[in-house]
């Protein structure tokens, strides 16, 4: 359930019109940038960790270059993990360059943390690093990378996501559900029945809830019809969740089709 809520959140976050981002405050009186810089360069782990805590609390984007510099210089694992995390919290695109090498660190924890943060710092560098991570030897990292690529709207990664989807990277389904276009969505729906429902499930909700022409209505209707025909508890639950969370401004045809399917009616003119 939590996963479903998270997926809905992801969908809505990506798909719904966004409010204009608030301009970052120019100045955070609570953060002493010079002091933070000195602490991060001190070679004193405790002092540096404390500075990172202050930066995280302030959420002052101006501190991002200080963290980037720390990452470029290198540090102990403990300090790196924290710096990577705070860089993600600050979410400055400029940090992606400093973070990306860490997706190839030999420590699994470090590289997974870097991949998570890159989903927040965004940008072309982040996307490329996550695409590379999808090709890597770390299964958990591949999952994190797939999620991140979905979050970052990396449509160019969809072919790779299709490759990894049946290879124990179920996170790729959610990303494909968010990112696919036209025939890609059709291909994705076509995998229903070929791959386990549990693998595919996380991609269906975002696909159904998406607005716009990238995810064509006929594909959505086909998906709804297939879910209806499955007639399993999980398929019905998914349709119910889709109906309950369907955006008010979403396409009425799809909403009606979901409702019809839940009442056992065919939505593609086939069997009833």
């Amino acid at each position: 359930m939590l996963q479903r809520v998270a997926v809905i959140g992801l969908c809505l976050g990506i798909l719904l019109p966004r409010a204009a981002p608030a301009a970052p405050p120019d100045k955070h009186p609570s953060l002493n940038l010079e002091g933070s810089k000195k602490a991060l360069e001190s070679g004193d782990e405790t002092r540096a960790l404390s500075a990172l805590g202050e930066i995280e609390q302030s959420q002052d984007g101006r501190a991002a270059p200080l963290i980037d510099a720390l990452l470029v210089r290198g540090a102990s694992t403990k300090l790196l993990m924290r710096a990577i995390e705070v860089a993600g919290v600050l979410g400055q695109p400029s940090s992606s360059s400093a973070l990306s090498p860490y997706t190839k660190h030999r420590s699994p924890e470090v590289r997974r943390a870097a991949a998570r943060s890159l989903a927040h710092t965004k940008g072309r560098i982040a996307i490329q690093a996550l695409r590379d991570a999808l090709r890597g030897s770390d299964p958990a990292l591949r999952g994190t990378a797939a999620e991140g690529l979905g979050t970052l709207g990396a449509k160019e990664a969809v072919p790779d996501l299709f490759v990894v989807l049946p290879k124990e990277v179920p996170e790729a389904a959610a990303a494909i559900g968010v990112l696919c276009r036209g025939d890609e969505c059709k291909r994705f729906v076509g995998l229903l029945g070929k791959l386990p429902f549990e693998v595919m499930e996380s991609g269906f909700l975002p696909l159904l809830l998406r607005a716009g022409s990238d995810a064509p209505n006929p594909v959505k209707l086909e998906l709804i019809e297939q879910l209806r025909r499955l007639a399993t508890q999980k398929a019905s639950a998914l349709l119910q969740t889709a109906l309950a969370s369907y955006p008010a401004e979403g396409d009425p045809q799809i909403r009606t089709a979901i409702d019809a399917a839940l009442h056992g009616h065919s939505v593609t003119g086939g069997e009833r």
Partner: protein
Amino acid sequence: MTGHGALAAGCLFALCVGCSASTVNSSTAFARDWQNDSGTSIAAVVQRLRGLPLVPNARVVVGLTEAGLVGVPLEGGSRWAYPSKPSSVPSIAGNLVIFSEGDHVVALHASSGAKAWSIDSQGLLLRGAANDGTTSALVLADAHQSQFVAVSASGARLGSAQTEAALGMPAARGGIAFVPWSEQYVSALELTSGNEAGRLLTRVQVSHALNYGGELYFGQQGLMRFDDKVRFASTNQANHVSLPKVDLPGKPSWLVSGLSNAPLTANARTKIRIFAAPATAASGALTLGAGTFVASYFRVIFGLDSLSGALAWVRTLPADIVGGAAARSGFVLCDTNGKVWLTDSAGGEARTLDLGSKISQCVADMGAESVPAAAPRGPLAAQIAGALDALEPDMAEAERYLVRELGKLPDPPVTQTLIELSSSPRIPPDLRIEARRLLALRTNGTDYMLAALARHYDFVSGVLLPPPVGPLADALSASGETRAAPLLAKHLNDPANSADDVAHAARALVKLATPAEYEDLRTFFALYRATADDEALIAAVVACAEALLRVGGDAARAVVERGAQDPLTQGDVRRALPGVLSKAAPVAPPAPRAGETAGALPETPPK
């Protein structure tokens, strides 16, 4: 034989063997009180047989099946079958195939499988048989006694002799049977009487008398020819040929002891054997046929140089090899599927025959003939690669041998094969390690190495093993191949590579790196100077610092100096860096600028 023993043997023989009116029981054969005559008596036998035509055995393959015997004449003719429950491995003796069956010894015509004769075996099993073109010489034995019996073409018993000593495999020529015994004698027995016409004393192990194309040979570990020089065998001056000492998979034997009966049930030893035939070279010297012998290891055949033992060729068959023979040039081998493979001396497939059913083992004789040359099979490296590809992981011993042999070949494509083996999930780990060791020593095939280094682990593309970065780094570093530098630098920061491989790559970059690799080197140094957690990675970081200092100018020195000063830098790394710094000549005298702190040292790459 002692007087008492001879008497006892004579009485026993009178009781057991005297059932044929024509049988003559020798009382002189196998006497133990015989004195070394320095080759006089055997020289007389040589003299007696001189000028007689050679009588080779029939060219035939005979297999043991569940239903009996099947045979295929090699000179042409139909396959035959003889329903039977043989109790001994058959022997090809002249134009006959002779074996034990129940209480009898049976002889079949080798060309047709038709029964020629059958005699009572007196409760003994056939150990070996020979034929001089007219008369057969049999050695029958059990665990306690051996008996020599001569049998006429019509099946009548002729001369015979019995002893408590174990007799070996006989040969025959011109009315004389040659019977090895006691591992050092070959008694020449009159076929008509069983009497001993001469005796050979050897200083090498002897349990087989063999007929190769009509020429006779005696021995076990090696063979001596029955010729004018055989009289000098007691002083090791006979014409002698032996196999070179080679460490082959399964430690195959050429001629196992002929002093015991060959097992009727096939076992691993049946499938791990050496097939070699002595032959006289144009120079008159005694050699092994066409300079090659073969060793079988289940379904693999190794062709080996008869002088050096070096691998000359290899091929795999679809099923395990359970018998065969060497020809004057080439080989005939049978597999458990009943298929008979005739290969030339280079392993080329000249011809195949079919015994028609599965077999447990086979015997074969090629007489004095050679297998005709077949189409060439391509370079040895490719043959080895093909064989390795065809073998299952449980053939590790053969694979190990082949990999070792592969490493000895200078051909550049060998490098490619070693790269593939180093990264192959199909072969056992220890073999992969051996392939890596050999790869590190390669001095050619550079383009294959560079192409391999260009690959990385790639889950999306299905490349699920990284290339053997460490051995490639070693080999390319040894040859000073700077084209490898950017590829090695990329591998530094690929966590799919083992720490050990990364250490080798870093070490190679100390020699090969150019300023173009600065960024990869700096990244690696930054990522691991404070997080290196094993010996290999620590060594890699230190080597990386060395490479940085060599190519990175002031910027690199600043990076390394900072690493040396930073308390967060891993202890061993930190202790090593001052040495690295002092070894590397400063690019420019340090000129600290006002207000500059250690933390503000430049990280930008050199231009």
